[in-house]
């Protein structure tokens, strides 16, 4: 996995907060897709970003968040898009998931983690009792 990009010029930050409820995940992914479409991402790359943010939100919903909300921050820069998905809950340890386990019918959350790691260029995860769970995902513009 490649390291996060070095400091780059930020062109704006979009903040969104959604209820931690399944029906709101579509709103998150459509909003993030709209932000991503302002950059030089291909259609496929925008689909990758949509799926990654949806998986992060689904993780937050499935593991519960005490204040019932999920925060999504999209930071646009020359080099790409940095998405930070944060909730107040204790998420699962996002370790590496082996493809063989998925083939055997791994749990949905493992599939979600696998997809996030496969579709995004850089993924950083922190979780603790005091601050909750934070997932920072970077997608670089390839073109």
């Amino acid at each position, binding site marked *: 996995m490649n390291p996060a990009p070095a400091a780059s010029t930020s062109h704006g930050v979009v903040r969104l907060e959604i209820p931690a409820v*399944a*029906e709101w*995940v*579509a709103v998150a992914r459509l909003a993030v897709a709209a932000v991503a479409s302002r950059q030089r991402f291909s259609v*496929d790359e925008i*689909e990758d970003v*949509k*799926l990654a943010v*949806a*998986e992060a*939100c*689904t993780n937050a*919903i*499935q593991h519960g968040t005490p204040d019932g909300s999920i925060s999504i921050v999209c930071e646009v820069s020359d080099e790409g898009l940095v998405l930070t998905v944060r909730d107040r809950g204790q998420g699962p340890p996002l370790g590496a998931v082996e*493809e*063989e386990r*998925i*083939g055997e*019918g791994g*749990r*949905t*959350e493992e*599939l*979600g983690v*696998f*997809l996030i790691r*496969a*579709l995004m260029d850089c993924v950083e995860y922190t979780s603790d009792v005091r601050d909750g769970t934070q997932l920072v995902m970077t997608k670089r513009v390839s073109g």
Partner: protein
Amino acid sequence: MDIKVNVRESEGDAYVVDLTGEIDVYTSPKVKDAITELIDKEHYNLVINLEKVRYIDSTGLGVLIGGLKRVREHGGSVNLVCTNPQIKKIFDITGLVKIFGIFDDEQSAMKALA
């Protein structure tokens, strides 16, 4: 955003589940209910048509995997019809192409059940 589910009987004992829309954490329970109902009625050979599905996430994949595991316990199978490159890519990167039969059209998916 919604998912439309249509179940129809096909050749022999096989059933086809046509899905239209987006399969995510909100809509996947509806897909799961349709598949579970078929299996509960002892229909173990299924074709799930994803041609009109624009989006699928891990919860949708989980429903398909769960259905496949259940029908296999009874000697059945689940074949998928999928032509959307983005959705095919999801099956590719998760390795699920190895456990599902994935076909470009319903006729081929039905033929492979036999």
